[in-house]
């Protein structure tokens, strides 16, 4: 009995040490965002600032750059992407799982093939295409390339396969149209899978840096990751206080959502990690 207790203490100790390393950047980020420049230059690691500078740092983060605008852009872009992905993927996933038709195998094969294609690989032609039709540097440029999520189709198809056919037949008996079945029968049963996919999609596009970097030139469309990298280069330089305040603000929405719905997030990521 004593031996087991001892083992548990050792394990907890190792976990504490690991957690200190994992959390160190967050600690540095948050404590620095509260301190005055002189104190930051001293390089103290104390959690409590000698002189509270939080208000100045956070005010500067929001006023020196349009941080609120960047956050709003992030919300507009991630929400639009997710809604369009669902509108396009769900009917296709339904056709691939619950209807018998010529070409189904071929289309599913295409979906599997497209799963192989990493986003960086199509960047050049999509960029050239957007350049030629003149929609670079716009919300459309940020949203359109992601409207098709083959992963979403794949995931929802796998889930729809487990929905009993009787449910679909019963809906047909009730005179619901096929498109009505997608939204009024399949969607409600698929909510857990859809939540997982939504979490995956929002994280991926809130954090995306490569594509916004390529297509945007105007500040007004910047998303948070692009915003902070520009901050660092231009506005603040070595003003770490406001820079760390901005970083805190940008990671806050997802981290708070994660802390509130931890289990859902981890399930979602595990499921989609199996991609």
């Amino acid at each position: 009995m004593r031996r087991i207790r001892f083992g548990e203490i050792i394990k907890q100790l190792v976990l504490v040490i690991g957690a200190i390393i994992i959390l160190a950047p967050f600690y540095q980020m948050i404590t620095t965002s509260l301190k005055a420049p002189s104190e930051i230059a001293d390089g103290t690691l104390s959690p409590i600032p000698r002189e509270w500078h939080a208000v100045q740092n956070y005010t500067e983060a929001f006023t020196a750059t349009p941080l609120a605008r960047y956050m709003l852009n992030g919300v507009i872009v991630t929400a639009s992407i997710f809604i369009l992905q669902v509108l396009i993927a769900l009917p296709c996933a339904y056709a691939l799982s619950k209807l018998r038709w010529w070409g189904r195998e071929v289309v599913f094969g295409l979906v599997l093939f497209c799963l192989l294609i990493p986003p960086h690989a199509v960047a050049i032609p999509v960029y050239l295409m957007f350049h030629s039709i003149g929609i670079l540097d716009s919300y459309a440029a940020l949203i359109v390339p992601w409207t098709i999520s083959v992963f979403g189709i794949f995931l929802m198809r796998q889930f729809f396969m487990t929905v009993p056919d009787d449910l679909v037949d019963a809906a047909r008996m009730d005179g619901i149209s096929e498109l009505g079945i997608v939204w009024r029968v399949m969607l409600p049963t698929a909510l857990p899978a859809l939540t997982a996919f939504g979490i995956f999609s929002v994280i991926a596009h809130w954090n995306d840096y490569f594509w916004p970097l390529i297509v945007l030139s105007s500040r007004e469309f910047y998303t948070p990751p692009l915003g902070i990298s520009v901050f660092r280069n231009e506005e603040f330089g070595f003003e770490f206080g406001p820079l760390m305040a901005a970083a805190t603000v940008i990671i806050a929405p997802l981290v708070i959502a994660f802390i509130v719905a931890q289990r859902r997030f981890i399930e979602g990521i595990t499921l989609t990690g199996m991609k």
Partner: protein
Amino acid sequence: MSTHEAVQAGETPSFAAASVRARMRYQLIATMLSAPAIALMFLLLIGPVVAVLLLSFTDWSLGDSDFNWVDMATYQEMVEDDIFWKAIANTLIYVGIVIPGSIILGLGAALLIESVTVGRSFWRAVYFLPVMSTLIAMAVVWEFMLNAKFGMVSQVLGFFGVEAKSWLQEPDTALPALCLIAIWQALGFNMVLFMAGLTSIPRELHNAAEVDGVRSAWDRFWLVTWPLLTPVTMFVAIITAIRSFQVFDTVHVLTKGGPDNATMVLVYQIYQEGFEFFRSSYASALTVVFLGFIFLLTLFKVFVVERKVHYQ
């Protein structure tokens, strides 16, 4: 097929005709339901992949009014380009460090957390936190942490007598520093994948081993857990490889491929050639190489690893 079945089953012809109509109707409905997805797949994924392939055989740059087919000349240029080989080598080193680093630490964290009695979900959340955090924001924080003067890393290392330096600006430490950030971020992701794998191992096996005299947890790990986890580990390794092959964000924000190409990686070179120098054909040839690597890794995953995972 339903018409054949209907006729063979001795249904009346009129019923078979109705069934043909029903089939036609479903054909139409299914096509319409999947048409947007199919069109976008061709427009945004399959078409562009074909375009990249074609572009790589031309000499076209953005802004040129016409182009020539140059066969393999672009690839010839690539093979003779030292930066390309540097990028390949760096990418492979990066992947080669991040895979074992994030797997060993991720598995370690998963095993530890599964074996303690208190605080499991707390620890899991803590170790998972970096996965949730915007990498660009955290890269900026890491840059500060690695700052030679007042960064936390330098201070802690200084405590142990290691001399502080600008880790991200030195040719021999810049790439390892990027690997460190990647491992820090990927560890929690791999941990939850391992946890999913661990729950599929029946507890009775551990108890059986214990009854059979395998006393230490260490021996039980190698005897029971590890053989059953090998397929999961392979799977996690491939996923980590595919993800780290695409490293770009930290390179762009922290080092720009420098110093002296010490952190030049494949996707960063594609970005430079394609979107800074606008040499579209050369960037396309690089993309073809990049795609080749990703395809190989994915095929390996589908045909070797997933088969094993299913048969375990």
